[in-house]
């Protein structure tokens, strides 16, 4: 097995918040199958807070664990707080990621960011009407 921490294995074996949200407030998709990993995050926002987060991930054990961890870290946070979650912070929460996998699998924070931006863009667009 790859040298994964117990925490990574635990999140990989029992990932939190897997799935999709119907009529999400924001969607963020990152990665592509060529580099190996793809993540899609769905968010529901209420009172400027992430009321619900779901994800779907195509990728290795680390990619799945990262997605699960990000969703857990961000749930209930304000949008500003959630935007501040960094790949480094996610890796730290997971008690480390294999060095060579840090960049390719650690896309969760980026996907979440994209979903939040999608929400903010939509809101801005809606305000103009």
């Amino acid at each position: 097995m790859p040298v994964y921490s117990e925490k990574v294995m635990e999140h990989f074996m029992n990932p939190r918040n897997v799935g999709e949200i119907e009529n999400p407030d924001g969607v963020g998709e990152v990665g592509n199958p060529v580099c190996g990993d793809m993540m899609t995050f769905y968010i529901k926002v209420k009172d400027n807070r992430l009321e619900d987060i779901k994800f779907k991930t195509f990728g290795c054990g680390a990619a799945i664990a990262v997605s699960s961890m990000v969703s857990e870290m961000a749930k209930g946070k304000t949008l500003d707080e959630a935007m501040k979650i960094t790949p480094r912070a996610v890796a730290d929460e997971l008690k480390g990621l294999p060095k060579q996998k840090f960049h390719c699998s650690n896309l969760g924070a980026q996907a979440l960011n994209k979903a939040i931006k999608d929400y903010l863009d939509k809101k801005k667009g809606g305000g103009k009407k």
Partner: protein
Amino acid sequence: MRRVYLDNAATTPLLPEVREAMLPYLGEAFGNPSCLHDWGDIAREAMEDARAQVAQLIGADTEEIIFTGSGTESNNFAVKGLALAQQNKGKHVVVSAIEHFSVLHSARTLEKWGFELSLIPVDRYGMVNPDDVRKNLRKDTVLVSIMHANGEVGTIEPIKEIAKIVKEKGVVFHTDAVATAGTIPVDVKEMGVDTLSLAGNQFYGPKGVGALWVRKGVRIIPFLDGGVQEGGRRAGTENVPAIVGLGKAAELARTNMASRIKHLTQLRNRLLTELPSKIKHVMVTGHPQDRLPGHASFCVEFIEGEAMLMLLNSQGVAVTSGSACTSRALKASHVLIAMGISHELAQGSLLFSFGLDNISEDVDYVLEVLTPVVDRLRQMSPLYAKFTKTGKGGT
């Protein structure tokens, strides 16, 4: 929990008879075969018996066998040593696109040393077309290296036909038979090649030992310089216990080959037919018929191999994958890509390689545990979600 080892392409276990044969040479029979006393004689005799056993396995003459430290060493030795020995004649080398890295990277090294390299493509089954080899032969071609069978997708190459073309042009032909020697019949004379490599841990012998067969009269530059071991072609004190084990494994392989092939083919055929019918959107990789007996390989759509491998391991099943995430270089298998398989599909590669210990119930168990593994990962996969919504992306 049931434990099912299906990664015999990575390494086979050591047979008890082989271990028994090796033990004296890890104990009282510790002599150096180069020495001219009783201790040396005992070691040398055992080593020469092993040489004869290996020669018999591949229909070679005993003195044509050079022991090495691995299949990788044998391939490095052959590709670099044969090219260097002929560099005054020409500097063009031809290898297939699906060679093992020990051949492919050796050929790349030759490029850095001023040689030119042509890569022969393969079809969607991983098969080399002999005509493509013919088209790539030039006046300055000094070496062609095509593997006997590919360990990742199991396809057996038409070596005899290719050898005929290569030898008509008087070019030296090496074949990497690491996946086949000791598994299916290999006869160097019938194949018509000049050099051939094999490795012990592919047919129930020890790791860290291989051999290179070099047909009498073929010039090769030594890879390791030093003493005059192995006729001056491979210096270094021989690994006697491993060589004795390789010899014993070769003898057992030769004696039991027919029954082994029958057993492995039955298991592999079951998996090749039952897995794609049980799980949707699974593609067999490699040639459907011309493939290694114990070898069943697939691409499972919409999901990634390492994740499958980890979940299967948690159910006691050992397999391997050619996905980018499982490779240390984080690149998808060059073999699957050369076969025209997309990066996306190559990510879902799974390889099951059966061994002598496997039984039919192992196939039942794998089919039973793989189904929920695939379902679970597909439920997580954005590619599968896209496919179920739009019908796009499937093959």
